[in-house]
């Protein structure tokens, strides 16, 4: 089964019954052949889509991609019309992932760059150990709510949790938010209790810099999922920051 070229640099692949190894081979081939836009149809659990492509290319996924979507990814922009599973954006370096449904656990694990936008909810440990480096700053924007350990070990980057599907007065459910966090920032819209936060984070009011970050990223989020950004930004945001840059500095003797 080969990828069907439509017009110039437009490819279309029917993933029905394809093993991920074959599917990713077709993707590598299409990118080598100059693809600018690839449409994957009937994706059903194939893993690692978007890895080893190493340049900008538009990938559209219809269906349900498997675990490690965009792992080690470096450049492509993936749009998923469905749900993503676990490990989406694992150790991602650059690129974008836009998910029109929900995402599973460890979203953006150890990502160093790139952006991930999820319309719905995410699983446990989203944003775990994201880091930033020089001009790279990973961004995670989640429209719904998250499970426990959101932003665990976070060392850099920006994580925005919007809580758009929470009812009036309903709290986020996640506990241990920001446990072990030692860098980066989390913006939370919607209510959380102090006990839901990790010991290593402090709460701050948002300032001008935060507002411009939120304007920009919520704006981008809203444009993907046809929301009204201004409506979202009307909600109250808090900012979570690590209390110490070296949370475990005083545990040891030499």
């Amino acid at each position: 089964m080969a990828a069907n070229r439509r017009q110039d640099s437009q490819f279309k692949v029917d993933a029905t019954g394809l093993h991920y190894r074959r599917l990713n081979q077709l993707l590598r081939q299409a990118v080598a052949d100059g693809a600018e836009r690839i449409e994957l149809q009937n994706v059903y659990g194939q893993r690692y889509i978007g890895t080893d492509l190493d340049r900008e290319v538009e990938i559209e996924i219809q269906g349900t991609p498997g675990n490690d979507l965009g792992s080690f990814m470096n450049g492509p922009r993936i749009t998923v019309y469905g749900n993503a599973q676990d490990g989406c954006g694992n150790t991602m370096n650059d690129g974008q992932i836009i998910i029109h449904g929900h995402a599973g656990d460890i979203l953006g694990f150890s990502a160093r760059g790139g952006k991930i936008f999820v319309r719905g909810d995410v699983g446990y440990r989203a944003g775990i150990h994201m880091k930033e480096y020089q001009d790279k700053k990973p961004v995670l924007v989640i429209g719904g709510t998250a499970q426990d350990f959101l932003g665990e070990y976070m060392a850099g980057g920006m994580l925005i949790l919007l809580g758009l599907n929470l009812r009036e007065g309903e709290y986020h459910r996640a506990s241990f938010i920001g446990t072990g966090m030692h860098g980066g920032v989390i913006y939370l819209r919607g209510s959380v209790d102090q006990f839901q936060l990790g010991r290593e984070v402090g709460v701050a009011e948002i300032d001008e810099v935060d507002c411009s970050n939120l304007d920009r990223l919520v704006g981008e989020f809203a444009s993907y999922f046809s929301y009204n950004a201004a409506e979202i930004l009307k909600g109250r945001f808090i900012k979570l920051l690590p209390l110490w840059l070296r949370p475990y500095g005083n545990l040891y003797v030499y």
Partner: protein
Amino acid sequence: MKTYLPPKFIVDRNPSRCIQCQVCVNQCSFDVHYYDADDDEVRSHEENCVGCHRCVIFCPTQALTIERNPLDYRENYNWRPEIIEDILRQAETGGVIITGMGDDKRQRIYWDHLVLNASQVTNPSIDPLREPMELRTYLGSKPERVEIEPDSLELKTYLAPQVELDVPVMFAAMSYGAVSLNVHESLARAATESGTLWNTGEGGLHPKLYKYGHNTIVQVASGRFGVHPQYLDVARVIEIKIGQGAKPGIGGHLPGEKVSAEVSLTRMIPQGTDALSPAPHHDIYSIEDLAQLIYALKEATNYQKPVAVKIAAVHNSAAIASGMVRAGADIIVLDGLRGSTGAAPKIIRDNVGIPIELALASVDERLRQEGIRNRASLIVSGGIRNSGDVVKAIALGADAIYIATAALIALGCTVCQQCHTGKCAWGICTQDPKLAKRVNPDIGSRRLTNLLRGWSLEIKDMLGGMGINALESLRGNRLHLRGVGLTDTELEILGVKMAGS
């Protein structure tokens, strides 16, 4: 608080030899020697001495002797000086005691209880000086059987990527951050020259060393520091680090002070921030998850490179190793109880994990029983001291050996166990540019190449003595080993007979 800790060493400066040149003052990175201008004399703060012997080697008149402080407490087998002093240190600080290097305690070293065979009368030994002797080793998954196209004689069977080694000894993972860049360069160059591999450890690879990629194993650990597409692409082998012998089950922590501008460049984190390696990989909670990461890395590099998985040797290593092979690991690395570290809690270093000899024997045996030994190569590490240990490890079933402490000793290390302080007087475990200069990569790579050459010659001698002309014939051949001073259970686990039987 007044410290109750006594000095560990006594610095004896022979006044009739000392010429007050102050070389020791400059060489000591632990602020022991100092020049007293009032009295115009070089003196010592003995309490700071760690016994690294840098000053002794560099004193031009051999005026210095460093002796252990006899510390004659009342004799007590239970309350030994080290135990007393550790309690004092914790009473004074309330912290976890951190140390460097490997377990220095008295657990049995099985290598010392294993002896090798040699040919006498009934089969001729081989003289490696005049006859070809093959140390070549291929790492990577091997097929069950190979099929050959009858007409063209081409190989029909798919061969997983293989890595050829001229000598079965490689340099184990030591991260840039723990060791200096000059050490990394020395290792990389020596590996390239000797036809073997070195390992970046979990701190990334400096761009300056990309050119040694063909001889480089890159590590992917729980912190994923410095892991990016180019890092994976330049490597020959990718190693997933689950654990290490010095600290099984716990994560790592490179303190912010050691994250210099250059270290930040390879780890890809901001300068001065702590680099935390979480205890587990948070994408691996099961064998199935391990398989997922193995294949993520294979996909990320288009199936061009073997993927290794390294674990600390623990009680159920054999079962775990079986799972690792089934998960798709091409190479399995076992790091034993004596495996070294740049920094680990001492209580864990000295008490957690099992001796590598036992782990190796049981893993090799288990994989054979299950008929999957061919599917992965087996590498062992953790306290391998000389070519004798290497040959015994291969006879016990290893495909290749990793050395780290032995390599650092070749560069000058005296195993003073101060690696965690970042003040290594030998310029090895430090990011202080003044100290790091003490390892010159031209000389360092030569010292390491010499070491590997010496070991290869010895290995060939031992093989020749056994009447074997290829290392491959010794691999897993435990009949060439015998045990001395071991119990029946130990012999059974090692799969060797008692000497004399």
